[in-house]
């Protein structure tokens, strides 16, 4: 389900991010007051931090908010090789001339879009240097190379995501960073809501979806006692889709969930036993 509609102008392999307007309403089931909270932060020009485990709907929420606010959404998945100039921009040589090309963050600032930096802790430390002035009331992006300061318009919004579940101290968000943001906490939705989501996303029959969600809950019971994470909503949606494609429920749970969760054979066996307890 692709919600990001790139414009008609595809020049070469560059996608014009300005055209990342979300046209159709992305399906999002609110769990609490997150929509209101985000809205309020946005109108007050306060950046937002989304906290929560993997696959619980953070990205979907951002797409939904971008649609509500009618702003283009630019998502950057951070990785450990991502540098500040990957975000801000760099000079390129084109037809014998140098041309400055904005990075996604600079572009988002320029067009007053929403920039979503996914898994910010994965990025190299120097990236925080560029987001700090953007995330406090200065709201400027320093562009070291060009010597310019890009002032963010009122429509611009910075959002970052962070999964506090990691144990590693290397993946901890520094206080000077996190204290610039309004934090919205996400978790896996309560069972009835999660069932609705699974049904909507996969087309699976409701009673089976409810059982699948119960199975998800069972794996979450094991978090911290041998599992680092339980099954995410995303994994449950995957399993549901397999079932809709006529894969037997046990096989679907095995493929989409237990294999994805752990390599420990005993744990995998236990998770498979849990799914066979629910699905004959």
């Amino acid at each position, binding site marked *: 389900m692709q919600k990001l509609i790139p414009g008609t102008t595809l020049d070469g392999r560059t996608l014009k991010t300005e055209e990342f307007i979300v046209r159709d309403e992305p399906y999002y089931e609110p769990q609490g007051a997150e929509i209101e909270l985000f809205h309020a932060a946005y109108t007050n020009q306060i950046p937002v931090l989304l906290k929560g485990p993997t696959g619980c709907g953070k990205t979907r929420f951002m797409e939904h908010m971008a649609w509500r606010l009618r702003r283009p959404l630019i998502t950057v998945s951070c990785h450990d*090789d991502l*540098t500040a*100039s990957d975000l801000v921009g*760099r*000079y*390129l*040589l084109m037809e014998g*001339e*140098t*041309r*400055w090309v904005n990075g996604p963050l600079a572009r988002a600032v320029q067009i007053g879009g929403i920039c979503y930096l996914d898994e910010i802790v994965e990025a190299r430390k120097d990236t925080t240097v560029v987001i700090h002035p953007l995330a406090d009331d200065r709201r400027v992006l320093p562009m070291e*190379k060009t010597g310019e300061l890009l002032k963010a318009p009122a429509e611009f919004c910075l959002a970052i995501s962070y999964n506090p579940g990691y*144990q*590693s*101290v*290397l993946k*901890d968000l520094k*206080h000077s960073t996190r204290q610039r943001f309004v934090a919205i906490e996400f978790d896996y939705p*309560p*069972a*009835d809501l999660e*069932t609705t989501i699974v049904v909507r996303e996969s087309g699976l029959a409701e009673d089976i979806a*409810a059982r699948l*969600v*119960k199975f998800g809950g*069972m*794996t979450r*019971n*094991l978090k911290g*006692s*041998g599992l680092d994470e339980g099954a995410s909503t995303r994994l449950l949606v995957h399993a549901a889709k397999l079932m809709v494609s006529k894969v037997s429920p046990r096989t679907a749970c095995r493929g989409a969930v237990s294999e994805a969760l752990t390599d420990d054979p*005993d*744990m995998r*066996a*236990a*998770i498979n*036993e*849990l*799914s*066979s*307890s*629910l*699905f*004959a």
Partner: protein
Amino acid sequence: MSQRPLSSFELEQCLENCLDAVLSTRRTAEAPASELSAFTRRQQEFVLHWLDVIVSSNSEMGFQFVSHVPEALRLLPVPEVEKWIIHFMDVYDREGLYPGSAAVRGVGLFAQECRIESMAVDFSSIVRVLEHFIRGLSGRGLKLEAGEHVFTDTGHIYLPARLAVFVSEKMNFRLYKATAAHLWAQTQFGTFRSTRNGTGLMKVCAGFPQRTRACRLLNALETVRLNACIERELPGLYLEMMALQRELAPIEYPPQWQPSLHRLRKPAATVQDTVDELRRLFSCRQTPPAAFCFQGDLRLEDTETAMRGRQQQEKRAFRLWLRQIALDLKAVEAARETGSAVRFAASWERAPDPQQEMSLVLQFDGTPIDPPDDMQLLSRSILQDFGEIPHDYLMPAGDAAYPGTSRPADLPSNVWEGSYHEEGAHLYNEWDFRRQHYRKDWCVLREIDVHPSDEPYVDEVLRRYSGLISELRKTFEMLRGEDRIARKQSNGDDVDLDAVVEAYADMHAGMEMSERLFTKRRNLERSMAVVFMVDMSGSTKGWINDAERQALVMLCEALELLGDRYAVYGFSGITRKRCELYRVKRFDESYGEAVKRRISGIRPQDYTRMGVIIRHLTDMLEKIEARTKLLITLSDGKPDDYDGYRGEYGVEDTRQALIEAKYRGIHPFCITIDKEAHEYLPRMFGAVNYVVIDEVNKLPMKVADIYRKLTT
């Protein structure tokens, strides 16, 4: 030896040689010889060898043997055939020729038993899977143990040490699973919840003239109810359980049972309905139908004793949570002033969908309070036992509920006479939670060396655990071996094309061209400094001390490989005036003989005052240059010192010191060895990351594992 099988003619000759005494014209060796010719030379040699042995005891037994050994070889692998031979010769020796030859002829039966035996499943091979399985079912962990009786005391599930009921490993495993699930269902669906007039099942059974019969009947009826619960909640499991039973013998209920079945299978049925039906059927002189294969026993006395112990603990824990909440709300002081008691109200919120767990709603003075997750979990366990939060649980705990405070504090206070001075010592503040401020320069700390020991302890550990250690090294090597390409280096193995293009463009734009144009393979710069702070208080005596030392050896081995900078300190002391930090390995010291001798010299000393030690090591770490700084504490978790540093005071100071460290950019991580998982641990360590290890022998591997996870 030729590998060609012997022909039937050759075999007949061999047999005749051996069995001459028992053969006649009507009883020849022809038939066995011809059968044996179909086997390999190796099998033939095996038969001839044993024939010799057997004939040396008795020729008739020899004849019986050759007549049946072909069958044996077809049914069993050679080692099992040998067992059969030993078995029947044993019978012959003990009971004579007739029973002996009967045992030879019984080879078919023997083979069947062997097969059953080889299909047996041991408890040890399933315990891990089933423990995960049971925890997954409801989130509450039950400990699985092998035991003589199959039952649950609501904290443990006891299962047989071995199951060989079915001739298939898979089925025997399923029986284990079904049994564990049935006993889990007893705890989950309220078998032991007290009945209408507040009595437990033990009293109910004791009220009947024939106690044992009543108890059996009760178990059978309750199984009807639980089966129905499982059918509703876990349909897949239910089908499997019924299939197992069908494989053995279906359970048939007598006609008088019909009304009971109907009543107990209703979703709303509780153990009260079971008790009512017990009364009805008992008076009908009904004997219970056969037990289900997964049913287990009801050992009500054992269960009730265990439950009482657990309930007391849970009550205490629950009230401690309330106290914490009351403290945070500043309700304690308010109540003290007005002389009234702090009271909470609890109710349950059930989500509209019945699949979902109930959740606790706490209220204080009419204001709802969101209970922490751990408390939520605890309250579910209480709900399972009582169906509500009993009234007396809702009173916050008093001071006495903290560990240690109940001990008399009238210990001699001046251990210090004579030699006391503060020269060269470090002074540290301590947090007094009652006054909510620091006591200035309250603690006096000195660094001293651990007295080295000449025991070859480290070498011994290295030898004894060489397998584990090499495994450990491998995992850590993998960490280190994570080579990656560093971009934009000023020198390196290859040209960084992206960088060149960028630099070229920069240059054209009139900027200075960068020199960082190369890529370089290199190990990720870890830039890590870690201090291990090891509990040397008296309470670590024995096992824990040994496990700590072993953990240190393993860690040092692993850390040497990684090249992370590390230091190791032990701590103990008596009173605030004598806090002692024992140097085992300083940052600038290498892991050599001296360090090894100090590790082996670590011995339990006196008391535990953690706050001051954390503050001192935080200072130390702050002076070290490293991107990431870790402070890992290894303790048995009990803050305890001579002069009142115990109970809530010690908990709060330790907590405060950890929070201070965190704010100074250090990552504290606490590893606690505590079999009882004391309730104050979340309070003390909860502000930072921590784990509780309940099995001491797992400590060494666990510590290394934690370190690996923490730093990748």
